């Protein structure tokens, strides 16, 4: 069974994640919309290309609005973290078509959390080493396209390793809290390009969707169809993320 087929089979999971994200995002932003609307009431601004200036003036006069944005960001990050930790065992068992009930898969949450935390260590070391190397190789271009692309690839590689580690914990009985589970996944990712390459590409696509959503929202600035385009990209991003996880499920147990 390939990864994409696993995602299609788990359509209820896809629907759940998509609806959860769209609903929460709409809920968060509705408060901001209302706050901005009340701040400028009863006036309006012209669509004459001075949106940034008007926004800056609005926030100069209503500094409290910034608290609204902070709430949205914190709430979204919290949901993001909960998705990472709570949802991943359920997602992995669903994608693996495992007979384990969703509630039962929640028992893996502490192990997934521990693996994620252990994972931070080699990720930090790898990224620091990579950053130093990149800076040495490209001292004048660390923020250039090459530097950005290379860093994104390195991060995607780390994500692939974590996916493998999580799958080993949930599906293959790997040592639940031991750091070696997290560390070995890096070696496995390095030696299994058939898993790593699609995983990296899917990660990049997922992040491209995130960046694209922001870019479209800023660029179109309130045009009628903007929001639906953003939401469509969010759905594509969810599909990319779940397919990436399915790639790790498809990879099976670690090869010794």
């Amino acid at each position, binding site marked *: 069974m390939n990864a994409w087929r696993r995602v299609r089979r788990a359509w209820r999971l896809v629907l759940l994640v998509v609806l959860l*994200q*769209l609903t929460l*995002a709409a809920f*968060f*932003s509705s408060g*901001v*919309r209302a706050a*901005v*609307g009340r701040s*400028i*009431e009863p*006036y*309006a601004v*012209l669509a004459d*290309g*001075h*949106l*940034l*200036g*008007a*926004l800056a*003036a*609005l926030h*100069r006069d209503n500094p409290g609005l910034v608290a609204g944005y902070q709430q949205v*960001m914190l709430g*979204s*990050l919290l949901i993001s973290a909960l*998705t*990472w930790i709570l949802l991943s065992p359920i997602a992995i068992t669903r994608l693996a078509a495992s007979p384990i009930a969703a509630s039962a898969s929640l028992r893996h949450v502490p192990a997934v959390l521990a693996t994620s935390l252990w994972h931070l260590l080699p990720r930090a070391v790898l990224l620091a080493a990579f950053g130093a190397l990149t800076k*040495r*190789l*490209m001292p*004048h*271009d660390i*923020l*250039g*396209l*090459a530097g950005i*692309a*290379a860093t994104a*690839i390195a991060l995607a590689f780390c994500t692939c390793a974590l996916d493998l580690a999580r799958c080993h914990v949930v599906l293959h009985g790997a040592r639940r809290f031991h750091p070696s589970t997290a560390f070995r996944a890096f070696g496995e990712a390095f030696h299994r*390009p058939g898993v790593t390459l699609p995983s990296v590409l899917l990660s990049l696509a*997922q*992040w491209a*969707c*995130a960046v694209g*959503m*922001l870019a*479209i*929202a*800023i660029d*179109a*600035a*309130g045009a009628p169809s*903007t*929001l639906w385009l*953003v939401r469509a*990209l969010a759905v594509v991003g*969810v599909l990319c993320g779940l397919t990436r*996880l399915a790639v790790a499920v498809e990879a099976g147990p670690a090869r010794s």
Partner: protein
Amino acid sequence: MLLDPNARAIAPSPPELSTTRCGSRLRGSKLLCALILGLMFTGCSEAPEPPRLAEPTSALRPETQRGLVPEDARVTDYELEARLDEALHQVTGSARVTWRNRTQRSVDTLPFHLYMNGFRAEDAAWMQTSRGNHRRSKQEEDGAWGYIDIHAVRLQAAPWLEAAPRLKAAPRLEAATQRDGSEPEAPRASVDLPWREDADPSTMTVDLPQTVGPGDVITVQLDFTVQLPRVIARTGYYEDFHAVAQWYPKLGVLEEEAGWQAHTFTVHDEFYADFGNYHVTLDVASNMVVGATGIRTAEELVPAEQTEATDGLQEGGSQEDGTEADATGDRKRLTYVAEMVHDFVWMADPDFVEHHGEWQGVRIRQLIQPEHVGDADMFLAVTQAGFESYHNRFGPYPWSTLTIVHPPEGAEGAGGMEYPTFFTAGDRAGLPEWLRASVLDEQMTGKFVTLHEFGHQYFQGLFASREHLEPWLDEGINTTSNMLAIMDREQSDDPWLVRLLSQKLHYSDMMRLGIASRAFLQPQSDPGHAFRSIHRNYGSTVYMRVAATMLTLRNIVGHDAFDAAMRVYSERARFRHPRGSDFEDALISSLGERVELAAGDGQVVTFDVRDYLDQALRTTRQIDFEVFSIIRRPLGGEAGWHRDAEGQLTGGELPAYLDKELEELEDDAIESLVSVRRTGSFIVPVEIRFELEDGSQETRIWDGRETIGVLSFPGQRVRRVVLDPDNKLLLEWDRLDNVAFAPQVDEPDGLSRPVGDITEALSLALMGIGL
């Protein structure tokens, strides 16, 4: 051709070397390395080195290009000699000052500025007013103090010097300074003159034995030592970089009405001096690359064995303070000539890389740090655009050269300052080019700062106003001219400053944001010393608010009329010391006292130019309008009881609106009333655009004399009202209350939806990456 032998050619870009190493170090990760290499090779193309241009042979451009230079504008000439001790960061030198009394006054003293003494002690006026902070630089432990110490003052020439026996001190003979390798001049008689520092050490007074009358010419020589501080307020040293600015004793300006002008140096008082010719000889380490006012006319290498002791040099060429000196101990003597300028600055750094360009024969020489060489073409292009715009708007640039110095990292306090034929730039924000091209770009750092400092070549360099007394005439009008130059360059009346994808922050937005909080604490025409640094309102008032004032005036009276008035001022102010009143007179004489403003429907409102300038320059009044209300209501008719010809009450019919909703009434049965309110105390006419339900629109001008004005539209339904629809009133910093819909109209406010959409996208993006 005179080129500095130490100036390095632009270095090849390093990626070529880097890529060679890449192949050997990343064998283990072929995919990653291939990707990196592929991306890096795309950026390896080397820009061709621009041609190096010869030093001009004359400090001024030919008369056919520069126009006439009035002879009576030349007042004070200087012959300066200076030797830089790179280890001690000291300059020892002499100044031979020849002054012509162009006034009808007689004087018996000479006041000199000793600007460097502003940094001498905590109780000096500059330090008191700044507390050691200036823009991006602050006083450091190393090099905390700077000063100038005068050793001697001697009178060398005066109409009455031959009558020396009558003087207290007998004249003595001394050899005149030999220069240009010419024969020594005949020995001169000289008389030691008494002098004293004033209450603040930033000025001193020299007593003359006799008065200097109208038309008289005298020459005095001053010997001095300057200790440079670590870079602060446009001068000083940082490692090997030396910015030697405001370094010599500079004579005050004798004004016909006010007498000698030599102001105390405080944090917001810049510089004021007469035009004259400069002949300067600099003695520096041979590895120094030097930029200076004017043109270099001679260069002589002085081998170490012919120099004085190499004090402070340690083995290997490093100095006691750890900076690098020329290990050979060789020196060089550079001679510079500048004509019809009112200041002389020089800067030296062994790391400078030269970059040359030109505009209509004017040599543009950049001295830039190696890591920023890639930006040199951008700086050159902006400077060339500045030349083009200023030439067309304000007349020809008179000098043959322009030097642009980019101070190194750590010496930012020397950046963003203007001197005749010379300015220091600030570096461009470190946004990578791909980001600038696609996502986020800005034109403030690098471009705007360059144009601003270039603009000072005219506004103060050529139109030498009294910046300490009228900073608005220098900084403010210069900022105005910068905006005009940017409009010329971008071919837009409101160019952008920051671009985020397709959203732009325009210059008009920046000005409004700039003046919003602190620009109205005091009149913009206040002298420099009236601005207290604790209020941090100097920049927003003197730069931004003045520019907003002038560009608002330009928008009101018409661009062509205002530009013509600026030309009138420019013609009058060249090589002069114009006053603010001269500027206002030029505007009024060109524009007229009153300007008739016409709206589309034949309506005419009179705009009083003088009153506008009075309010803007000499009060703290602010322009602010708001749409107060938009009311639709039934039009009053004739229903009800009326007396007929016999005096009987007849009729009694009900008004038509009683049994109908407002929206059900015919157009001719209703009226719209729009109330606009002047919430600011600045009285100025404002255009108002009324958009009607039938799709038509009408523009009227309200003179703004009353606090509130009511405009009626019988038989029409007003849909939206826009105050100042063409964005003319840049002085109105709060425009969020300028647009309103009628209450019956359900339309988005234009802000809540885009902000909500961006927030929702941000939320989805953050949640999405958690998967």
